[in-house]
């Protein structure tokens, strides 16, 4: 039996390669937050309370111009992709109590979801690992925001050091856990291709929702077609 604390710390450590990217993204958010009139503490509080990077950036873009309802609805829409992530991780969480499920959902970020689901796929996953990954990302994000809001534009552009590459590179490594046969490779290629088209055409994060749904549906379709083919 593996111990909870061991898995927890393994989850925290697994976020390490991603943290420079999360902090750099947080710095950028902090600078932008100041520009729309946030105090550093407000910038920090928003990250701590909301903990949803893409939605926070979108909301900064409409701060002062949009009402509370619009802001909250925008947050909801941008985070719709988490419905898909939650759905796919749900089977692994069936034996947990409702408070545990709620705790894991509360801080589930793109990054910690990817780390946790890949670990489950490799047979080493656990709710403690998931929580550790959540906590690692959760602590780094507001820290970057506070730093960015305090230092202002004195910070260098993270793109210069390639820090924005950590996210796609780490996710590629995690993605390979799911490329187990030809169908799953086709699913990933379709998901990536559709998402690229969607990112150029659709607002917000709709491209992830559309590509996630269509890509996974393609997998099921190919599986069914393959079965019929064999039966003939």
């Amino acid at each position: 039996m593996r111990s909870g604390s061991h898995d927890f710390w393994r989850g925290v450590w697994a976020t390490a390669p991603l943290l420079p990217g999360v902090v750099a993204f947080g710095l950028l958010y902090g600078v932008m937050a100041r520009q729309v009139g946030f105090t550093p503490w407000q910038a920090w509080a928003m990250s701590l309370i909301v903990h949803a990077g893409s939605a926070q950036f979108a909301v900064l873009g409409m701060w002062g111009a949009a009402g509370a309802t619009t802001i909250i609805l925008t947050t909801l829409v941008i985070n719709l992709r988490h419905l898909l992530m939650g759905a796919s991780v749900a089977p692994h969480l069936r034996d947990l109590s409702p408070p545990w499920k709620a705790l894991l959902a509360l801080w589930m970020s793109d990054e910690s979801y990817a780390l946790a689901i890949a670990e489950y796929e490799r047979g080493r996953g656990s709710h403690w690992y998931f929580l550790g990954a959540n906590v690692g990302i959760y602590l780094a994000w507001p820290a970057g925001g506070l730093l960015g809001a305090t230092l202002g534009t004195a910070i260098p552009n993270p793109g210069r050091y390639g820090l924005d590459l950590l996210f796609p590179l780490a996710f590629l490594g995690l993605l390979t856990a799911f490329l187990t046969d030809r169908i799953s490779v086709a699913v990933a290629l379709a998901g990536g291709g559709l998402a690229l088209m969607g990112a150029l055409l659709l607002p917000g994060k709709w491209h992830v929702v559309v590509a996630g749904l269509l890509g996974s549906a393609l997998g099921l379709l190919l599986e069914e077609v393959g079965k019929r083919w064999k039966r003939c």
Partner: protein
Amino acid sequence: MEALLIFAGMALATFVTRYTMIAVLGRPDPARPFGGDEESGGVQPGLLRRWLRYVPAAVLAALVVPAALAPRGELDLGLPALAVLIGAVVAWRTRNVLWTIAAGMTLFWLFRALGW
């Protein structure tokens, strides 16, 4: 103060998107949304379960490709895209996160130093 209330509303909206499917599809109830094929002979539960197996591959790829090729919403095939492409090859060969990051970042910094 008003800002804090808006943050709380945003947090609630975020939590709803993250928790809903975990609560609905993570139930251990007798309806067996996941184990259906053998026990109930039902087609629907089996389909749902098999569909969910393909979701991570589709979602992770959907997060990677735009972040690499169109980070600002328009196609950008510069050095970052090349570095991620090399990362993809290394990921494919090693299936390892750290090697993938090391390869992509090394290439990025090397070309940067060479004046790309």
